């Protein structure tokens, strides 16, 4: 810090911006370092890196299906091929679908599902939770009663009902999950805001003449987000698990390159000893959920203000 002090003593205030950037970077660097220091979190991140790479570079691994990228190509002449076959390294389904294609392009489907659903629900949840917690009173009452209605129905059943009512399509699964999942974030956000509001720095901000909106933006929001980040990470895994469940029972388009769909196609063959379809696809769902759970737990430890390094 001595050299920094000297820089300032020389009077260069633009150096201040560098210093501000440096302090912020050090803080984030510390968080990243603490996250990676935990071996289970590192394992989770490693798994995610592989799966994300698979999703992003899908066309380089398996050529895109000319009938539609998200559609599994059908090789009607070669159903039930075991893994290791020359054209189908991971085998085929009873309908001749290429398992490798389903796995690799299914990663894209899962990523799209998770990012869309978590993105939408986090935004809705933060908005609703903020209305309830920050505005309070009548608003709080209204939002929380709505939340109670949503919470009274189990999320899987609720999502299933909505998706079934809207008809079998993957877009509808996304919509159904978005409708169901925001509630959790609204509750977390409200609780956080009620707690953060008690801090004297919120009063201090009002005292120095800050507007309500600025207090929300600069004091309340940034200090409320930690548990939302953790929950969102955990839900990235959870959403894919439920999405796979819904498409497994046939709520996605038939033949969609999606892991749940793949398990569904392969289930008829399991009894006959054709294990590979359900195992590879199910394994991907498992790895995906596991990885996000590991990372989510790691983030919880690092971001928890009680354990955050001072």
């Amino acid at each position, binding site marked *: *810090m001595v050299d*920094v*002090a000297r820089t*300032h*003593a020389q009077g260069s*205030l*633009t150096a*201040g911006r560098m*210093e*501000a950037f*440096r*302090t*912020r970077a050090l*803080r984030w660097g510390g968080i990243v370092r603490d996250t990676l220091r935990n071996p289970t979190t590192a394992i989770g991140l490693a798994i995610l890196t592989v799966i994300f790479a698979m999703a992003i570079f899908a066309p380089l691994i398996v050529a895109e299906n000319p009938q539609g990228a998200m559609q599994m190509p059908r090789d009607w002449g070669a159903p039930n091929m075991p893994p290791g076959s020359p054209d189908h390294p991971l085998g085929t389904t009873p309908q001749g679908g290429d398992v490798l294609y389903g796995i690799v392009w299914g990663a894209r489907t899962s990523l799209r599902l998770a990012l869309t659903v978590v993105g939408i629900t986090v935004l809705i949840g933060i908005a609703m939770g903020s209305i309830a917690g920050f505005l309070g009173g009548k608003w709080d009452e209204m939002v929380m009663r709505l939340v109670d209605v949503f919470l009274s129905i189990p999320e899987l059943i609720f999502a299933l009902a909505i998706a079934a009512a809207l008809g079998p399509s993957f877009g509808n699964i996304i919509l159904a999950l978005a409708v169901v999942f925001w509630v959790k974030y609204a509750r977390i956000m409200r609780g956080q805001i009620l707690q953060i509001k008690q*801090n*004297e*720095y919120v*009063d*201090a*901000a*009002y*005292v*120095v*003449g*800050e*507007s309500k909106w*600025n207090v929300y933006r*600069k*004091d309340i929001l*940034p*200090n409320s987000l930690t548990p939302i980040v953790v929950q969102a990470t955990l839900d990235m895994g959870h959403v894919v698990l439920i999405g796979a469940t819904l498409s497994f029972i046939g709520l996605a388009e038939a033949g969609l390159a999606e892991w749940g769909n793949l398990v569904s196609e392969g289930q008829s063959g399991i009894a006959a000893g054709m294990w590979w379809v359900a195992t590879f696809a199910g394994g991907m769902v498992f790895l995906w959920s596991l990885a996000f759970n590991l990372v989510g737990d790691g983030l919880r430890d690092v971001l928890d*203000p009680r354990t955050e390094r*001072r």
Partner: protein
Amino acid sequence: MTAFETRPTDPSAAADRGDVINVRGVRKYYPIKGGVLQRVTGHVKAVDGVTFDIPRGSTVGLVGESGCGKTTLGRLISGLLDPTDGGVYFGMPAAERRRLDELMTLPAEERTSQQATDLQTLTDGYRIDRLNREQRRAYRRNCQVVFQDAFSSLNPRQLVRDIVGRPLKAFGEASGDALTQRVVELLEQVGLGRQHLFRYPHQFSGGQRQRISIARALALDPEFMVLDEPTSALDVSVQAQILNLLHELQRELGLTYLFISHDLNVVRHMSDEVVVMYLGQVAEAAPSERLFTATKHPYTEALLAANPSDDEDAEDAEDAEDAEDAEVIRLAGSVPDPANPPQGCRFHTRCPVAVASCGWEVDDVVRVATEEGASLEGLSDVERRTPFDATLRFESEPLAQAALRMLRSDGRSGPMADAIIRLEHSGDSVDVVLRPRGDVPLVEVEPQHRTSCVLFTEYGGYTA
């Protein structure tokens, strides 16, 4: 900044400069909700009718036990809370203040329409919860707060530059390098420096954090600051540094302070005037030295007796000798429930020198009997007609007779026994009637020395 230039630097001339703040009959009640329907079942009377002035350039100390409403009052004065009743007036010239007091002493129905209009004008012009946008901004700029907990009063995700520069930004005073430059000046004013600009609050010690808090409060160049226990969370050595800093700043900038604390030594060191609060009301208010040497309220005396004062002060040593001769007043019992405060003088339930006219009520009869171990056995119901008139029902007639004997032959609760004006028993019930007593007013018994103790306001003092 004309306000700054006209600010005199000599605090001894305080009397001529009017008041920064006038608090008039301020009340803050919090509803207690109960039942399924969340109906209001009562009110916690956190602040219950407080009136005092804060003269420009001076320091007014506000003391009392925790839970007496001093922090709530501080928040009312700093505009963080709106009062249930009464108001806080800011920057009122002396002539207008006199006019306001004159008008407020008139009952509402006796005011002429001209007087009512005048009162309205004064209220709209100076009461902080009625100010228009522009006036409110001026008030906001001139009234700043230093909070008690230096750990929670700084946003953990902001850098010191942003924390201290925030008031300047909110008021559109500076930005960019000019803001940074100004923040450096402010930091230097509180004993910090350039090297602290780009750090997070958690990188500082408690004392340094409180300095940052003070720098932030100074940023808008205010004339008045509410110091809400600014040192109570600090080590003693650091405490002294912060107090000295506040002292110096006051001298340099001609600041006016409201200093809230539970520590009498600190208040004595800091304040020109002291206001002692008990259960939401002012018990005693006087110039600092008078309050400490010529105390006129047993509650203040009890606080002084409970205060571990330093022996190096000759005066204190003398006080200690006196205290050994006379009977020391000690605080006994617990603070009554502010949702249901005692009638009359609020301190009478714990007061060692209470007399019959302090406001003894039916609740006291039940409480004292219970506290003295002679519980009113078999008491099944208390039917109150007023706080001073009730029928106590017992399970059987012998139990009622026993209770009557107990109340008649009561030993230690002398003043309460004197306050009982009727005590009759019929069948299984006992009628108790006590001398009714309204609120005890705060009376100026000596120049600038106000007390609410009836012994001084009605009996001319007491001998401890």
